[in-house]
Structures are given as structure tokens and as C-alpha cells.
């Protein structure tokens, strides 16, 4: 038995060991208390490594190109951030850079830093603050929202020019799935028990 207080309504509940791939919900407010995962560590690592490869492609290869008559304008993922910065919109540039480029990278590096030692049964310094950081930055990773932005921009410009999505857009789209699957494979309770001992 495992005693836990609901993080949304503070009700204390006893949770029996869960069968794999099941969810425990709060009896009072319905919030998800625990989700048991199968092969959590292996799946997290696999999706994170896949994500990092896709990230490398998404940040280096051509992103979107716009063709209007003889004119072609090529862009990379960071081009938008650079253009905003050049127009004097420094805060906006930083915000977009953080939410779509830096935080996803921090998430993946953080997961590797925590999960490789877990896989190899090693103890590393700072694993606890790194995992806390991973949990805290999660809502600020907005790649999927950016993807929706790409689709809207393509429709918007579709009347005046042809938009050619590059390889990086495909990698970026797949990266969203890889990162989502990596994050959902994380069994936070398992991580905390392994990192901090069953207190």
C-alpha cells in the first residue's frame, strides 16, 4: 500500500500496487494520481534518443521555403527568432527561442541525464534537481503549438506564394511525437523512489 495525497484536492488515499498500464484516480476530484507504466526506463530512453536525432535534423536542415515567381526565401527553424530579434522584438525572440527550441532540448538532455544512470544502476550528482527541472519546464515546451502555427502560416501565405516544407519540418513534426511519447513513458513515482529511496 502506498499513501498519497491528491495534488488537486489534498485528499489522503491508500493506493494498492497497480497492475501495469493502469491509472489511479482521486476518488474525490478525479485527478490522475498515479499511472503505472511498463518498461518505463527503456521506453523513455528510446524515445528521447530518437528525439535528439530528430532535433539535430530539425535545427540544421532547411525548414520552410517560400517561392514567389523567381524569388525563393529559405528559412531554418531559428530564422523566425533571428528576424524578430533584428526587428527589435528581443523579448518575443527570447520567448519563441525558449518555448520551441531551448526547452525541448533541456527536456531531452534532462531525461538522458536522469535515465541513463537509472538504466545502468549508477548514482549521479544533481539527478534530483535535474528531474525537478524537467517537471517544471514541461508546460513551457510548445513545439506542437508551433506546428499548428506553421499550418496556419502556410494557409495564410498560400494565396500569394508557394510554401515548400523542408526536411526539418518533417523532423520537427516527428520530434513532437517522440518527445510526447518520451514524456508519457516517464514513471515519475519510479524515478523518485529510485533517486531518493523509499522514504
Amino acid at each position, binding site marked *: 500500500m502506498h*499513501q*498519497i*495525497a491528491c*495534488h*488537486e*484536492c*489534498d*485528499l*489522503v*488515499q*491508500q*493506493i*494498492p500496487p497497480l497492475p501495469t498500464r493502469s491509472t*489511479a484516480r482521486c*476518488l*474525490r*476530484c*478525479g*485527478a490522475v494520481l498515479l499511472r503505472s507504466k511498463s518498461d518505463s526506463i527503456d521506453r523513455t530512453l528510446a524515445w528521447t534518443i530518437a528525439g535528439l536525432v530528430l532535433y539535430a535534423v530539425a535545427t540544421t536542415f532547411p525548414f*520552410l521555403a*517560400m517561392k*514567389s515567381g523567381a*524569388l525563393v*526565401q529559405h*528559412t531554418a527553424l531559428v*530564422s*523566425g527568432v533571428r*528576424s*524578430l530579434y533584428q*526587428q527589435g*522584438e528581443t*523579448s*518575443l525572440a527570447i*520567448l*519563441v527561442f525558449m*518555448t*520551441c527550441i531551448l526547452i525541448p532540448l533541456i527536456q531531452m538532455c534532462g531525461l538522458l541525464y536522469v535515465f541513463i544512470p537509472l538504466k545502468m544502476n549508477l548514482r549521479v550528482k544533481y539527478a534530483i*534537481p535535474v528531474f*525537478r527541472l524537467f*517537471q517544471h519546464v514541461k*508546460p513551457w515546451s*510548445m513545439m506542437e*503549438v508551433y506546428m*499548428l*502555427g*506553421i499550418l*496556419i*502560416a502556410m*494557409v*495564410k*501565405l498560400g*494565396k*500569394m506564394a508557394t*510554401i515548400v516544407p523542408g526536411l526539418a519540418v518533417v523532423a520537427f513534426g516527428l520530434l513532437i511525437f517522440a518527445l510526447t511519447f518520451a514524456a508519457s513513458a516517464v514513471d*515519475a513515482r519510479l524515478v*523518485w523512489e529510485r*533517486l*531518493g*529511496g523509499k*522514504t
Partner: protein
Amino acid sequence: MKVVHASARKLGLVSCQDCHLLVRWPELAGRQSASCPRCGSELHQRRPNSIARTWALVITAMIFYIPANILPMTITSTFGSKQGDTIISGIIYFIRNGSWGIALVIFTASVFVPLMKFVIMISLLLSVQFKSVWRPKDRTVLYRMTEAIGRWSMVDIFVVTILVALVKLGVLANIEAGPAALYFATVVVTTMIAAESFDPRLIWDVLEEADE
């Protein structure tokens, strides 16, 4: 599942906000603080100054929402003539072009969601302050939705980012970010922080007080 039917606070316990470890709440004197024995995060029975902080952030967001809607999000210059587009005029543009789906997506993300967030956060704050016992579960669900959906409002900012990167054809056509973009981004960020600073456990505290 067996239920004790009491909150952690009532039982003299506190749940760590980061690792969810249930810890005995120590008696604190003066300016002392307690931290989680497992992960080191600072322990709070309820998020500190939750109501005041959330109010401040919601009001800030509402103030910034006004220039975000009045001022242009993008400034398009073609052959020397400049045209500013606000959030609303962008939506109207899509409707005129028959792109109803896109118009609906932008309207939802940029107009409907921020307004709903204001309404929901203010109702939650008032319901807690007036010690309402009305449908606590539904109010918690409303809070959960607000927390989950807020990020999608950023979509218009990202559209602007992509437009300014792509449309750089010199005198032919050029798009710049307008002043509303920063205001709107501030609205999204402050409402997200507002949702994070609100403590849904306050909704349930009233019920326990009413039980006694």
C-alpha cells in the same frame, strides 16, 4: 482503494509539490521553512499567497489584453505602403477568403481561450473567497482544463514568427511583428503563471471547514 476521508492538511501531513512524497508537517516558527526530505523542494501546505498572486496576474493579463487586441500584430509593407493587421482583422481576412476552419482555430486560440481563462480564473477566485461549496468537482475540472489549454493561445505568436521569417522580399513584400505581438505574448505567459499559482486545493478546503 481505501479512503481515510481527510485532507493531508487535516491529518498534519503535507504532500511535496514536486515528488508527491507525504511528509509530516513540522511546526514552523516565524520565518522558518520546511523542505522535502526526498527531493529538497520547499514544502507548502498550500501554494503561498495563492489568491493574491493569482488575482494580480489575472488583472495584469486583462490589462495587457486591451492593447493586444487594438494594436496591430503584424505590419505588412508592399511597394512602400504599410498595412497593420490586428488579431480580429486577421480572423476577418480568413473568413473573407473562405478559410472558415483556420478562422475558427485562430478565433478559439486568440480570442475565446484567453477570455474564457479570465472568466474561469475570476470565478474560481471569487468562489474560493466567498467560501462556495457549489460543485467542487466541476470547479476542479474547470481549473484542470484552464491549465491544460492555455499554451495553445501562443499559436498566433508563432504564426507571426513564421511570417516574419518567410516574408522578406524587400520592397515587394515584407512583414514585421507589430506592437500587439509582445502584449499578446505577455497575456499568454501571465495567464499561464496565474493558472500555476492558483491552488485548486483551496476549493476543497471550504468543504472541510463546512463539515466541522
